[in-house]
């Protein structure tokens, strides 16, 4: 098939042996690329029960057939491993330009196995692969690391790196690229840190062959006008995700003080109007037609973002109504290589524990100074930061506060309060990597458009199922989340690029297959129905104020949604996948 390089770079870090092998095209036809194909590789290659931070775990960087082509918004790279935060499958998506460069260097995927003895970085220039000591980079922030590597190897290179959080094996560490882009969740940076890889520098001189280039150019110009750069999608360019602050506040789902409420009085201090006042510049990823990157600068604080998740979980959820402080927090987390969602959620949990007198972590809601000291303390495991580095699941096991430890399977909640968006609760409970907003996003229907009632379990299983199938194939093709293209268009683009005939129906089958291979991975690692659940706060406590005041998510409604979701998936009532389903999907 066109679009692929039919080449995988496999590096055994124990022996520094470098192999190039053909991509498994049978799997590529079934899973396309990126998320789906990466998970398939890991599922087939990883021994069950592998410690995520052991040399035996693998780190897979997977592109897709659309990567590096003229298809817009296709510049995302999937990074796949077993998560040190959750023990589940972990696939993260990172923007910037690194995915394109890997393809231009001649690879569909890079697979790292084993571990080095000494900190190093890997330099890849087409067929030339080199291990270079990173002793002088170890301990440095991601931003400085990227600057030093670009200075040494030239600005034509693209860099992925980890910060101190990844080196210190935090379950909330990420991998950075283009300074401000992150593969953010589940501790993917710690897997790279456990392998003593500080960075990967890539420079490619090749290109990607497309099956029908004239048609590609013609149709893509049409699609850009009709479906991409349109009223539906340009919000990402003009306002960015910060616009969601007002929308979630209006819906009563803006997390406030560790999800004690969904209504933040200071929301107008951290919304998109404030962000636009402080806008410093714009940026887009490779191949992007939308350009959602918004630089914000307030005094000495500057970052690309903050995105909604940071404004919510690292802002209102910590009682912080100070945009400059959130920009600084975001800047610190990015440089330290730490996920702002899990970091913010852990700090907010510690604030509630302190205020309730259960355990004094020395930090309270709205304490800007304490809040800004935490990222460094956590990433470098200094003082109380060494404890907070564990994340809320482990901390609540030690100190209590389990009922308000806002996590699923060990992954902390993103910025949407499920008591005001019941399907979002189901989406968190069933997402493959724990509480995640990127697998299904029903808040758009329940809260923004109000096309469905947010406070009912009726029809919610189907809403989440459809979105998960859609995202399963979209993140495998790979197309950015911000382009809401339909499956007919996705199938057409894949047909034009690969030369294979794809239909919308094929897209649905592939999406379903991707969900199932991820579920099979988790099932093999011992995850069951008991893990598809939510913190008790959501079942037992009502929201106090705001548009969703008086609402909780009744346990029986949650169980009903979960039961219906399993039935739609064709899973057994205990959430396991039957052999018939495995055979039907040719897993």
């Amino acid at each position, binding site marked *: 098939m066109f679009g692929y390089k039919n080449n995988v770079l496999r590096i055994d870090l124990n022996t520094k042996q470098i192999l190039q092998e053909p991509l498994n095209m049978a799997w590529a036809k079934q899973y396309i690329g990126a998320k789906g194909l990466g998970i398939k590789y890991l599922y087939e290659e990883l021994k069950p029960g592998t410690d995520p931070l052991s040399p035996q775990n693998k780190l897979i960087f997977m592109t897709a057939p659309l990567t590096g082509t003229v298809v817009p918004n296709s510049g995302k790279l999937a990074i796949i491993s077993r998560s040190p935060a959750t023990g589940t499958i972990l696939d993260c998506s990172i923007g910037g330009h690194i995915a394109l460069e890997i393809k231009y260097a001649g690879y569909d995927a890079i697979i790292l196995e084993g571990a080095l003895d000494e900190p190093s970085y890997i330099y890849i220039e087409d067929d030339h692969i080199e291990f270079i000591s990173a002793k002088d980079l170890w301990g440095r922030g991601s931003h400085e690391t990227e600057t030093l590597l670009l200075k040494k190897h030239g600005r034509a290179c693209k860099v992925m790196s980890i910060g101190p959080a990844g080196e210190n094996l935090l379950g909330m560490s990420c991998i950075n690229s283009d300074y401000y882009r992150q593969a953010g969740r589940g501790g993917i940076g710690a897997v790279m840190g456990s392998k003593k890889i500080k960075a990967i520098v890539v420079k490619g001189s090749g290109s990607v062959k497309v099956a029908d280039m004239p048609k590609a150019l013609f149709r893509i110009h049409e699609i850009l006008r009709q479906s991409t750069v349109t*009223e*539906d*999608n*340009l*919000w*990402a*360019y*003009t*306002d960015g*995700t910060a*616009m*969601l602050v*007002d*929308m979630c*506040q*209006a*819906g009563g789902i803006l997390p406030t003080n560790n999800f004690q409420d969904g209504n933040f009085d200071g*929301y*107008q201090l951290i919304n*998109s*109007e404030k962000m636009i006042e402080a806008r410093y510049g714009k940026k887009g990823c490779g191949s992007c037609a939308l350009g959602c990157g918004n630089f914000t600068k307030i005094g000495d604080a500057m970052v690309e973002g903050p995105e*909604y*998740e940071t404004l919510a979980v690292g802002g209102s959820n910590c009682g912080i109504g100070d945009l400059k402080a959130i920009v600084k927090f975001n800047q610190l987390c990015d440089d330290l290589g730490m996920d702002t969602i899990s970091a913010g959620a852990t700090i907010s949990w510690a604030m509630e524990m302190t205020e309730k007198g259960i355990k004094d972590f020395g930090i309270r809601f709205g304490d800007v100074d304490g809040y800004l000291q935490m990222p460094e303390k956590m990433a470098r495991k200094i003082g109380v930061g060494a404890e907070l580095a564990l994340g809320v699941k482990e901390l609540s096991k030690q100190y209590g506060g389990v009922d308000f430890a806002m996590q699923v399977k060990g992954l902390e909640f*993103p*910025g*949407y309060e499920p008591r005001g968006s019941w399907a979002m609760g189901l989406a968190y409970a069933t997402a493959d990597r724990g509480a995640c*907003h*990127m697998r299904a*996003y029903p*808040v*758009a229907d329940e809260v*923004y*458009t*109000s096309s469905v009632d947010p406070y009912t379990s009726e029809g919610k299983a189907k809403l989440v199922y459809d979105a998960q199938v859609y995202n399963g194939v979209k993140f495998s093709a790979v197309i*950015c*989340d*911000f*382009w*809401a293209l339909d499956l007919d268009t996705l199938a057409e683009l894949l047909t034009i690029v690969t030369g294979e005939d794809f239909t919308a129906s094929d897209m649905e089958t592939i999406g379903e297959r991707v969900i199932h291979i991820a579920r099979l991975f988790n099932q093999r690692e011992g995850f069951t129905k008991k893990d598809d659940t939510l913190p008790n706060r959501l079942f037992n406590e009502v929201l106090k104020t705001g*548009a969703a005041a008086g609402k909780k998510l009744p346990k029986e409604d949650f169980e009903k949604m979960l039961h219906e979701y399993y039935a739609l998936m064709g899973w057994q009532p205990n959430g396991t996948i039957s052999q018939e389903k495995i055979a039907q999907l040719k897993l």
Partner: protein
Amino acid sequence: MKIQITLKGPLKKYDKDVAMQRRDWPAGTVVKDIVTAMNLPGQFISMVTVNGVKATMEDQLQEGDKIAVFPYVSGG
């Protein structure tokens, strides 16, 4: 009565008429009246808030209200 109108995202391009912000709206004006007067494309509106609270097209407005109109969004 005076109403403060904020258009979000790509809807901003419909905010060409400064006079609209200075306009005196008659008593009894509802959200839909403003959407119609500004020629806002209904198919691109996902949410309207009045003073930060989610509103419907039929909600009646009061002197000094702040109305915000949001486009559809995907992802997060």
